[in-house]
């Protein structure tokens, strides 16, 4: 079954076509990778799904419902959350508050009720904190609950982005270069985490990544973009041996490795 369907999605910035007529489907509970060289249009693609950008044309369907025209926070309520390539944490707030903000849409507290000190709201807040702690423990940040997010090391910030995103309990989780800037050991831990999230949280994961080892190891299905065009799709083995992909992308990496 497909959770996410993208139909003929195009985005133009003035004269530049960042993504051109992309059609793809993402199967429920799968790990799908979107790869491609720099500037291929991958982040733009995520930005359209999460309504940061409005597509020039085309449609995005989550479980059959179109998301085009919604506001970013509405897309989030529909069940899609993401992390950002250029980390966007709430730097001035504590680690646990970052996760609590991720839970925003699941907390019922209204400010009037807060001022009336309704017991239900105080209980909810307490429960949310315990839950947030558990999420932080899950991603391995439980030692930093009271630290300001901006003070964390780079790798930890990336994990906090994931923690914040899963706190929103998404149906589809979009990860934009989650391993960027991580050392091999951190990347290994991240790989395990992504694997584990899929089963443990019953979530569908779409990730953008340049780390080919991670991508090949983790993905069920891969889409390859180049200059805004979808040039290939298939299982990791198919992509590995696809001539166009090798030319556009892996070829470069292979050349670098020689």
């Amino acid at each position, binding site marked *: 079954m497909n959770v996410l369907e993208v139909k003929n999605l195009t985005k133009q910035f003035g004269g530049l076509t960042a993504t051109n007529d992309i059609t793809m489907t993402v199967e429920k509970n799968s790990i799908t990778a979107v790869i491609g060289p720099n500037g291929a249009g991958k982040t733009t693609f995520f930005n359209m799904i999460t309504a940061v950008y409005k597509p020039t044309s085309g449609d995005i369907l989550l479980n059959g419902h179109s998301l085009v025209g919604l506001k970013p926070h509405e897309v989030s309520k529909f069940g899609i959350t993401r992390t950002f390539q250029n980390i966007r944490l709430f730097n001035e707030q504590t680690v646990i508050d970052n996760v609590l*903000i991720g839970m925003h849409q699941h907390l019922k507290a209204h400010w009037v009720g807060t001022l009336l000190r309704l017991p239900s709201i105080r209980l909810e807040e307490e429960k949310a904190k315990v839950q947030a702690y558990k999420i932080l423990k899950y991603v391995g940040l439980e030692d930093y609950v009271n630290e300001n997010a901006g003070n964390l090391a780079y790798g930890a910030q990336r994990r906090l982005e994931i923690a914040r995103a899963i706190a929103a309990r998404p149906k589809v989780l979009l990860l934009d270069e989650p391993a960027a800037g991580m050392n091999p050991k951190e990347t290994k831990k991240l790989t395990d985490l992504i694997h584990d999230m899929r089963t443990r949280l019953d979530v569908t994961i779409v990730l953008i990544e340049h780390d080919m080892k991670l991508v090949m190891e983790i993905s069920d299905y891969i889409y390859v973009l180049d200059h805004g065009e979808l040039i290939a799709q298939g299982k990791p083995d198919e992509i590995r041996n696809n001539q166009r992909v090798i030319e556009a992308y892996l070829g470069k990496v292979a050349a670098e490795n020689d």
Partner: protein
Amino acid sequence: MVKEWFHKFSQSSRAQLFFIITYVLVTCLGLYLLEDSASAIFPFLLVLLSLLILYYMKINVKLKWAIGFIIIAVMIPLSASQGSNFQAFMDVGTLVLIYVAMSLGLNIVVGFAGLLDLGFIAFFAVGAYTYGIFGSKQANHFMPFGHYPLPGDTFWIFIFVGAIIAAIFGILLGIPVLRVRGDYLAIVTLGFGEIIRIVFNNMDHPINITNGSMGISQIQPPRIFGYPIDTPSEFYYVALFIFILVIYVVKHLENSKLGRSWKAVRDNEIAAQAMGIPLVKTKLAAFAIGASFSGMMGTVFAAKQMFVDATSFTYLESTMILVMVILGGMGSVPGVILGAAVVIILNNQVLTDLSNWMTSLSTAGILNVPDALSPSKMQRFIFGILLVVFALYRTQGLIPHKNKKVDAERLKREAAAEPPYGNSEAKTNLEGSDS
């Protein structure tokens, strides 16, 4: 040695309690005895300093609030009450409370939500005019029914009417204004602040609503149980009542879902939206709640002055409130309170006293200071310098904001008692709180 002693002191709440009580009693006695002399300002400032000391003490939080309340509500008025300066002191006290409440309102907008508003005084004006119009004969000019002025007993309702109307103005201004960001937002709010002032200044025709530049006079003093409130020492308690209300609201919202959303929007709009926070609604809430504080104090201001006109609501007033917030520490509730108190007391008490003292020196022929250099005329200069110094050396303000910490140990214990994070449990939780 001293360090050790201090450490011991800070560990013992009884020693601290003993210290603060003694300190308050001594300084209050000083104020009581010295009140008629020219140097009454010193014990007055020392009494106020006790509140700052109290803030830094390590004792039970509820006890702290209780002591603070007693100092503000009982000790200060009581010890100042025996001299000729009583009403002058209480007037400054009332002003401090009014401006503290407004700064706390602006702090929600600027400090929490990160929206630079340079026209904040407009909401104060809205509150002031609301009571001014209906608490005087003015409303007779345009209201088709009823007889005005409304009796002073209605003032208490007008505090909340003022709050609501200011909040509505906040939302109405916010809707167009919040389309722009950053520097543009500052410029647009500045413009709106001025527009509101000018509109109030010209609403005497075709229908006379505000009496234009003549202003509204003979505003009814508030009444409580038939007893009129018309001296500063009485308004002090009205302002105190609203101040407590404001503190309550701020303290409860700051670390609530809404408070977190404000700060999320401030720190990163795109990420905040990606987490399901509606941008416009959240910003409007900040505008409305902040404005309502200002509106409430506006009604007090109108009742206290018994007169309103547009000259009280200039751009300079907006900047002044912003200075209080920046000086105290953006986003920091204790900081903003301190900032507002420092600015008002410096402005209305210290500089005036200093000027008087210098004048007395020159009349005695000891020192000849030209009138133009008198400290009370250099307010803006002094605040300008202060602002520059703070911007350069202490961007966080007098009392920098500190994030509230959670008890990690307790969370750890509670989390351990539950099944680990994961699917089944996430699901039941989902059902539990989503329905």
